[in-house]
């Protein structure tokens, strides 16, 4: 005999918590729920407004340095630890959860030019104006021990930057040339030169770890291969590049922070022209760091602001500034993709949220669902003028605002002149205006003429 039994899934009628409303079976007949576009539009509008209302990105300021913060480094194994070096040669290690300095070292005389942590997180390296490379323990010294570096290497010239290999006990410094060092030795494993200019920064590729990129003050970016101990190719730009950063998810993509207020994203296989030019800053871009997801990067500029750019967009999606923040010299995106740290001239390190309106802390599942829904709605209705107007509105200090306007005028004038001079009969002069990013990508060392 067959017994027919009604069976129901408890998920359909059991509520999540006692305080919830009873769950009721829904009827999804569209006739019963009219005006879906209008309703969703309203929701999107509200979500956008709320996003703007809750956009409070600034979390805290870590003060304690006695001079401008010149460089920072992330701890590879601990999210709560960050290292910073100042212009007076002081290195501080911070605990981000407590927002406290947990250790201070007088590392160098003069600037701390660069610092990097070893891939295992047990020690870190600093270079300074005193022509030394020092290796330090990450842990604070035990009771009775003195604060001393593990190793000190005395070089012949000033080192301006340092970066550690991602997997091997090898690090690279830059100054007059790019030196690659074995941790165990006091002389470089090999020195890579191409031209005789001072090199301001060197970075290892995080994915293809034998690759290095450096930027020199003779306006070029040079790529090196550590295995063959040879430079590969160089790109000459219009102006000097201050730093570059490799994309941690895309092996051949890197972004260069340039003096001409722009950032250039290059594909290292096709260096003839940049993949994307990111412009919004109104002064020299001093530092750039990728988000660990490789979808965005943050840039620090001399114009006292930091901006967040999507990798595939030419303009920034966010700009952070405060009244007290001066020229931002260094910036880092934390490894959990949540926060941004920037060190500036006025001796502070600031902690920002990477997503300005994000709610911190654990979210309930329903809260999360609502957040996702709002996000989707914002995405869906992003082209609607009212929503776009709200979503895009940002406050800027007057100086930046005025400079942006001024530069818009200048750019327009330059374009008009170009069109007037060279392509009088072009049907669409705006499109014909060339991107004046790359001057040349060369193997040779010859100087190329300036492009327009």
């Amino acid at each position, binding site marked *: 005999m067959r017994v027919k039994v009604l069976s129901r899934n408890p998920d359909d009628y059991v509520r999540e918590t006692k305080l919830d409303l009873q769950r009721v079976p829904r009827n999804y007949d569209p006739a019963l729920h009219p005006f879906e576009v209008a309703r969703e539009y309203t929701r999107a509008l509200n979500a956008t407004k709320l996003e703007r209302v809750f956009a409070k990105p600034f979390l805290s300021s870590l003060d304690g340095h006695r001079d401008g913060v010149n460089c920072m480094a992330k701890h590879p194994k601990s999210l709560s630890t960050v290292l910073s070096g100042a212009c007076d040669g002081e290195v501080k290690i911070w605990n981000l959860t407590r927002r406290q300095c947990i250790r201070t070292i007088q590392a160098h005389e003069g600037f701390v030019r660069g610092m990097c942590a070893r891939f295992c997180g047990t020690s870190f390296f600093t270079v300074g104006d005193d022509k030394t490379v020092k290796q330090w323990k990450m842990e604070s010294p035990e009771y009775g021990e003195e604060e001393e570096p593990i190793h000190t290497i005395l070089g012949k010239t000033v080192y301006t930057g340092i970066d550690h290999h991602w997997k091997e006990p090898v690090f690279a410094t830059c100054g007059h040339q790019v030196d690659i060092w074995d941790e165990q030795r006091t002389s470089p494993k090999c020195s890579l030169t191409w031209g005789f200019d001072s090199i301001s920064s060197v970075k290892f590729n995080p994915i293809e770890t034998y690759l290095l990129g450096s930027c020199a003050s003779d306006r070029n970016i040079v790529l090196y291969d550590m295995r063959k101990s040879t430079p590969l190719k160089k790109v000459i730009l219009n102006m000097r590049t201050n730093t570059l950063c490799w994309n941690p998810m895309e092996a*051949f993509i890197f972004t260069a922070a340039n003096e001409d207020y722009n950032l250039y994203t290059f594909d*290292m*296989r096709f260096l003839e022209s940049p993949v994307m030019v990111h412009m919004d800053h109104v002064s020299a871009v001093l530092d750039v760091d990728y988000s660990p997801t490789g979808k965005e990067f943050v840039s620090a500029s001399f114009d006292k602001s930091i901006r967040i750019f999507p990798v595939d967009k030419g303009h920034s999606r966010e700009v952070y500034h405060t009244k007290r923040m001066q020229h931002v010299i260094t910036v880092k995106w934390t490894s*959990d993709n949540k926060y941004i740290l920037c060190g500036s001239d006025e001796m502070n390190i600031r902690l920002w949220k990477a997503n300005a309106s994000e709610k911190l802390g654990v979210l309930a599942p329903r809260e999360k669902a609502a957040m996702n829904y709002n996000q989707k709605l914002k995405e869906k209705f992003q082209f609607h003028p*009212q929503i776009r107007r709200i979503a895009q509105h940002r406050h800027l200090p007057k100086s930046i605002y005025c400079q942006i306007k001024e530069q818009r005028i200048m750019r327009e004038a330059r374009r008009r002149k170009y069109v007037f001079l060279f392509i009088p009969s072009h049907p669409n002069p705006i499109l014909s205006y060339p991107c004046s990013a790359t001057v040349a990508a060369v193997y040779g060392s010859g100087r190329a003429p300036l492009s*327009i």
Partner: protein
Amino acid sequence: MLWAVVAPPAPCPANLRRPRRARAVPESPGTPSEAGTVVSVPRSLPGPPRSPPVLPPRRRTRCHATRTSQERALRQGARARRDTRWRFAAVPACGAMAEEEDLAAAAAGSGSESEEGEDGERRHRQLLEAISALSGRKRRKLAERSEASGQVSEFNVTCKGAGEKLVLSELLQPIHPKSTLGSVRKELARVKRKAAVELPLSKEEAKRVVREAAYVTTSKDVGKWQQVVLQNRRAEQLVFPLRQDIATVTPLERATSAWKARTPLEQEIFGLLHKTQQPITDPLLTAEEMASVQAMSLEEARHRRAELQKARAVQSYYEAKARRAKRIKSKKYHRMLKKSRRRQALKEFEQLHKSDPAAALARLEELEQLRMQERMSLKHQSKGKWARSRAIMAKYDLEARKAMQEQLARNKELMQKVRVEPPEEEPCELPEGDTPALPVPTGASAANPWMLGKPNGPATEPEAQEGPRDDTVPDAVENKDEMEEEELSEEEALLQDFEQKRRERTGILQGHSEEHGADETEPGAEQPRDSPVPPACSEELGDSPVPSVCAEELVSAGLELPPQAQEQLLLSEQLHHVQTMEDMENLAKEEFVEEQEKLVAPRAGKQAQQQEAGRAGDRHTKKTTTKRKMISLEAVLDGKPQEMDCPSLPVVLEEEEGGMEQRGMITEAFAGDDVVADFRREKRKAEEAAKPRPVNLVLPGWGEWGGTGLKPSTRKIKRFLIKPPPAPPRKDRHLPHVILSEKRNIHAAAHQVSELPFPFEQHQQFEQSMRTPVGSTWNTQRAFQKLTAPRVITRTGHIIQPISAEDVPDTAPGSGARLGGEAMPGRKAVLRGKAVPKGKAVPKGKAVEGKAAGGKAQPQHRRAR
């Protein structure tokens, strides 16, 4: 010297493809290199960077000039090559006389073997001519032929190919047949075979070459990520960190193993801890605890624990059961329980009687005592305060009535005499009416209803009052009723009184049946039954009849309708009338309303309203007719100037010769369609559509009867049919040939997307994307989750490492097969096109590497030295 290599522009025979030298053409540094043309940069100059393939426009003119010179050089080269071809054709035929042959060929313009016979004559003639020339006034010195020359014309002018350098093989040709010169030839061949050692490249250049090769291989290496990168960029959702490893928690002991007390404070604390023998490594148990644990054997402990567990389980089970039983509200259940308890008690008593008569007697005594107490106190009678209040309430409240009945039952029960006499004596007790209903359910008596006690259970009475069992009542019972009536206790009398009163209230009209029903109730048909009817049932029976009777009454007694119903009925009729014929009904309605509402309704208002409605209807019809007339008039009026208003067409036609004819033709051709009238119609339609429409807010059935065949009153229609204010005059009212649409809403336009946003290619796509809702209001939970899934998911507090080969899902670690499998060709193509500049010098040795790396990326032109 500057040399350039000429590569053949067109495919030519294999034997001709060898390096030829042509005079170099001075080349500007900005010359674009073209495939297969002369391109080689002067060696001595430092290599300038290659100019981009597309030149900036400023350089174009200059470039043009250089190109012409270059073309000239090309043409020259081609001519030279043609000459060599001729020569090659001739040489094998002539053998030793090659020079003369060439000479002759050059003079004739084409060398041919057929003319071999006439060669002597010709040469002779030439000689003569030369001699005559010598003798003439143009005495020119013949060029001395000191060495073998390719072409020397008889006019002492060097031929086109004269500039070419001699090739060793050409010199050797004549030697070929002669065996004596074989050794020389061999030696020469050997010399020729020996490749000259190339000059080492300059340091700068060597570095450049190395760089280039390294760059090619490296970018190829990196290119293997292409596919992964594209996949990640396109991915709907990315979850970071890519490698989800489970965090392991290191035990505290291991974490602290390396730790040592160093500071004085730490050492002090450590010392204290050690002094008290606190466990450090295994923090679970102290020494004493360990000792106590060891004191009790494991087996014993287990046994004890099991016992305890069992006891606890049993206890909890009983507790739960008791709680459950306590919570049961069913009266039936409780009654049953009580009965079973009673039965149990009885049984026990019986047993006691058998086993221990003395104890049984004592028990009996006890019961007797109880009875006495009851009789003395009369606790359970209707004299108490509570009972009185109940008695008052019983009039209205069924519950109270029931409670009273219960109390009476209890009273009776307590007052019963407990008897231990044999059952034979029971019948004699019957007339007394004191027989116990409950404690005597013995087998014999249960079967016989007459054997039981007095059948006047008050609980049964109300049910039976209006029950449908009237007919089943035996006649014999009635007599008995009369007999027993006096025996009713006063409580029962009271109750019955209530009942009667109630019945009087409810059923006044059923005068005759009243007493009868009252009588019928007394002999409960259920008497023989042992158990009383459950209260729920009694409730049903008690309550339901009243409203039903009322309804019946209302229906049946048509004469005495309440005034409300009458009014409604009339109204409905009226409405019905309206439905059929309008004018007539209107009038009729008016009269009817006049008649009807003389007393009650505000007659005049309604009348006025209806009249108005009628008038409105009239007006409406009139309006339509007038409107129609107007329109037709307009059409007529517009129709006339129609030909006059647009005279452009006819005028032009008239100017022509056959104007009339053409006009006729056109009218013939477009005989069917009247464009102007069509337009007019269209415009009228647009005007109509743009007119504001009245809003109908009439809700049928509100404040009046509704239903099929009913129509809301005109008053209501008038009130709730909201007429909008007239629209502002149309902008095109003075433009007969123009329709200006005024549909566009400027206020709405501010909220709308004005142009198609980027990723969309068609309006429909965008609209579709807008139209599909995402929210959970319109989608099922799962669809909602899927639709709103975020692009990037990160886990809080997790470090996201850069991607590595192990993270790529399809790749086995180390194999790298998936990484960039298909990415190669595309990348290669790009490399060929872009990365390796053409015309860059790559020496032979390095070129091999280039070939291996980049396929055809190897430059085609090599420098000859």
